[in-house]
């Protein structure tokens, strides 16, 4: 028995080290259930387990090196059989990577900022169980003396409800047994023994809504697809096809929810899609096929998904006659070539069909005529994974948290100027304030929160005065933004709202496919106006023009990209109009961001002549002698901000 589950990426690695059996192929649901039972019987939950957070983010921070060092340490101390080491998916606490969790007897100790040189001490502390290694424990920013050992007590985790992300913390995504041990594929087995109509009923009952952002009820989408499958292929003997598609073309700047699930728990997506395939096509004459459309920028996600697909096929959980049920289904991966608009469902379908990724006219909707003209159910990664939870734990469990209209939990990537950046999962309805203050720990700078942006380039900015609104589809829409697929960007006083709006409009403009006039040309003109304003050339009528163009783009655009792209501008005008006016009328940028509108000056009272700014200035625009007063030549200054960052005495001012 091996103590380490090495990530080999080798598709053939389906041998079962946990039970000592060979590769498994399940011909019946009972065979699967019996195997899971054997896995559970052989599993010692109390065993010392060391988990390294190994998403793309963790690996970039050095998780691979830490993992290798731990493996060497395990070998050195001959811990086989006494301890387990795993490289898991992302644990979410980005700000504290590399994260290592040591689990022993049901207690989880969280270690932050772990480096390879720390592992000997860390393993020793874990094995001896004499108490945690103090210096690597989580330290709340407000009190440097306090150390929090228990993972569940760390505020970042304490206020979350990690349901969808639970396996990210526990399993090695490349180890098939790890997923099975958590009851993996038992939901699929259960689904295949359930009438499709009843299955769809569960999804409807759970209240699950599309996690891609629009929030369309998933159960109804499945039901519509099924009706179309039934009517399209009624009485036909052959050639009937329908499709289930996963939208993993996560393109919003600062969003990494779907990637983390694909990397850390790829089997959940496969299982969810297989359940969906049975729901829409089971007991009909139509064959169902699956596609995962994933952006090519996610190599680790693609690699893990490929491995998982091979494992599922080898185990008879994909392919012909799944679990002996007579039902056949398989999934292909299609890589997106880097167009944001391909996250729009019909553009995504066009792209899978090898056509230019541009949206199609709706109706007909994909549920009626989607991929290759056939009924198609297209859901986000989180929606598919949620379906597994609904089937596995029941619709009541899923709906036990959330609000009246938005059930379940939502995964967000909490980024921007927040102290605890990371991947979080909270019940729908939790207020933005609780999320940002309670989980995010407020701003990193300690300055007050100014706004929070949700929904990426399609969303809007909500001011700090409205942080008491809960995150559910309706409340966010009412506030002028959208749920989106889970991006959440926190901004403090040093964020210029006009500049922020310009950034997002630029994304929208660059990523517009250019098919329809309002989106293609309207966004271009909005960007030009914002450019003028931030450069100090804004005119009095510009705010009205921005609102007018934005409103028309929203109403007249072809697809969702254009219909939502003006939101960042319209919402910032709605809540931060005075900031636009300051740029236009006073030629001032209150946040000190827009370079054309600020000057850098040195406060003579605070400057002690340390000369650091003088040395850093790349254009020699600073005059002054060591221990003497310093000055900035405003004509030569290029406003790069190097002096501002260099000064340890707050003597450099942005005015």
């Amino acid at each position, binding site marked *: 028995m091996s103590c380490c589950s090495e990530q080999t990426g080798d598709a053939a690695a389906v041998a079962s080290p946990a039970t000592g059996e060979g590769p498994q192929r399940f011909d019946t649901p009972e065979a699967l259930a019996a195997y899971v039972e054997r896995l559970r019987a052989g599993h010692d939950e109390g065993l010392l387990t060391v988990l390294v957070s190994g998403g793309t983010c963790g690996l970039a921070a050095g998780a691979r090196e830490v993992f290798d060092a731990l493996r060497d340490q395990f070998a050195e101390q001959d811990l086989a059989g006494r301890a387990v080491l795993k490289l898991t998916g992302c644990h979410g606490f980005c700000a504290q990577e590399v994260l290592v969790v040591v689990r022993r007897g049901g207690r989880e100790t969280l270690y932050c900022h772990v480096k390879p040189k720390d592992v000997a001490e860390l393993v020793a502390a874990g094995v001896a169980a004499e108490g945690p290694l103090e210096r690597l424990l989580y330290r709340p920013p407000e009190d440097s003396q306090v150390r929090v050992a228990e993972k569940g007590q760390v505020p970042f985790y304490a206020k979350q409800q990690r349901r969808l992300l639970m396996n990210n913390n526990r399993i090695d995504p490349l180890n098939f047994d790890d997923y099975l041990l958590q009851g993996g594929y038992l939901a699929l087995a259960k689904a295949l023994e359930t009438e499709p109509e009843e299955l769809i009923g569960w999804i409807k009952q759970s209240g699950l809504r599309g996690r891609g952002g629009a929030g369309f009820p998933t159960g109804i989408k499945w039901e519509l697809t099924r009706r179309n499958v039934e009517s399209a292929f009624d009485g036909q003997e052959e050639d009937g096809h329908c499709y289930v598609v996963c939208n993993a073309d996560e393109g919003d700047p600062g969003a990494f929810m779907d990637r983390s699930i694909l990397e850390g728990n790829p089997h959940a997506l496969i299982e969810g899609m297989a359940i969906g395939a049975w729901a829409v096509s089971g007991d009909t004459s139509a064959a169902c096929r699956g596609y995962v459309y994933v952006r090519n920028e996610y190599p680790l996600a693609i690699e893990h998904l490929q491995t998982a697909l091979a494992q599922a096929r080898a185990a008879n959980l994909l392919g012909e006659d799944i679990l002996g049920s007579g039902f056949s289904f398989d999934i292909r991966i299609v890589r997106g070539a880097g167009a944001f608009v391909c996250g729009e469902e019909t553009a995504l379908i066009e792209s899978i069909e090898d056509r230019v990724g541009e949206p199609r006219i709706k109706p007909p909707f994909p549920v009626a005529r989607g991929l290759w003209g056939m009924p198609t159910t297209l859901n986000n990664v989180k929606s598919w994974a949620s379906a597994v939870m609904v089937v596995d734990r029941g619709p009541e469990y899923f709906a036990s948290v959330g609000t009246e209209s938005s059930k379940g939990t939502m995964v967000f990537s909490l980024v921007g100027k927040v102290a605890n950046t990371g991947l979080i999962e909270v019940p729908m309805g939790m207020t933005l304030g609780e999320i940002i203050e309670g989980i995010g720990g407020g701003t990193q700078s300690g300055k007050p929160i100014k706004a929070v942006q949700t929904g990426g380039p399609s969303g809007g900015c909500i001011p700090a005065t409205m942080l008491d609104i809960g995150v559910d589809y309706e409340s966010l829409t009412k506030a002028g933004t959208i749920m989106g697929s889970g991006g959440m960007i926190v901004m403090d006083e040093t964020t210029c709202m006009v500049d922020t709006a310009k950034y997002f409009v630029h994304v929208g403009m660059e990523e517009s496919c250019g098919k329809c006039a*309002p989106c*293609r*040309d309207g966004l271009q003109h909005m960007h*030009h106006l914002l450019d003028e304003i931030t450069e100090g050339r804004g005119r009095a009528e510009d705010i009205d023009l921005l609102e007018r163009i934005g409103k*028309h783009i929203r*109403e007249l655009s072809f697809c969702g990209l254009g219909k939502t792209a003006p939101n960042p501008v319209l919402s910032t005008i709605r809540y931060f109009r005075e900031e636009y006016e300051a740029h236009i009328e006073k030629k001032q940028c209150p946040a000190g961001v827009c370079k054309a509108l600020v000057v850098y000056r040195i406060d003579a009272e605070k400057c002690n002549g340390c000369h650091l700014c003088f040395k850093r200035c790349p254009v020699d625009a600073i005059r002054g002698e060591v221990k003497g007063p310093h000055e900035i030549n405003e004509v030569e200054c290029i406003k790069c901000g190097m002096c501002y960052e260099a000064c340890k005495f707050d003597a450099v001012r942005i005015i």
Partner: protein
Amino acid sequence: MAKQKLLKLSIDGREVAVPEGTTILDAAARLKIEIPTLCHHEKLEPAGACRLCHVEATTATRKDVLLPACASAVEEGMVVRTDTERVAEARRFIFALLLARAPQPPKLVEMARRYGVALSADAADPLCAFLHRRVEEKKEALGPENLSWCILCQQCVRVCEEVVGMRAISTAYRGPKRRIATPFFDISPTCIGCGSCAYVCPTDAITISPAE
């Protein structure tokens, strides 16, 4: 063949019954109600690209929504208005955008003028004045002879694919940089010189020259 179901609707207060599947644009044509279009052609599949044909409609499920007439099928009991201020303003907006892209084609300039849109420095509409400035900047940068005449309606691309069956031209790039192009901007190897693209072009942006 089974008789097609007829749907009743009203357009600008006038009743009309049309077969299921008819677009609002075609239903309006029965009543001789003009809805301006630039990307529509009766021999081509609807594209919904120019967005000029928006009308205001109330259906059983939606109230006062703007719908593209060329790409929206009629619904039973639908009430359509083509004569509201909201529709007129939407048309002005689209015309202004298209004129800013292609300010010179006489056909486009004349059509826009009929709907009350002209880009000029002293235009009463601030949008038209703003877009006029942008055109002037572009003229300055590129020279007036290099301004595009194309409004990217894609009728040329579609006729080549759907009617001629050659697919000799296509769109290239995306967003504001989009343009109509032959493969690699070279002489298209599949072009048969039929002239269909030039024939359907609503702004005369395509010229046919004899092969060398």
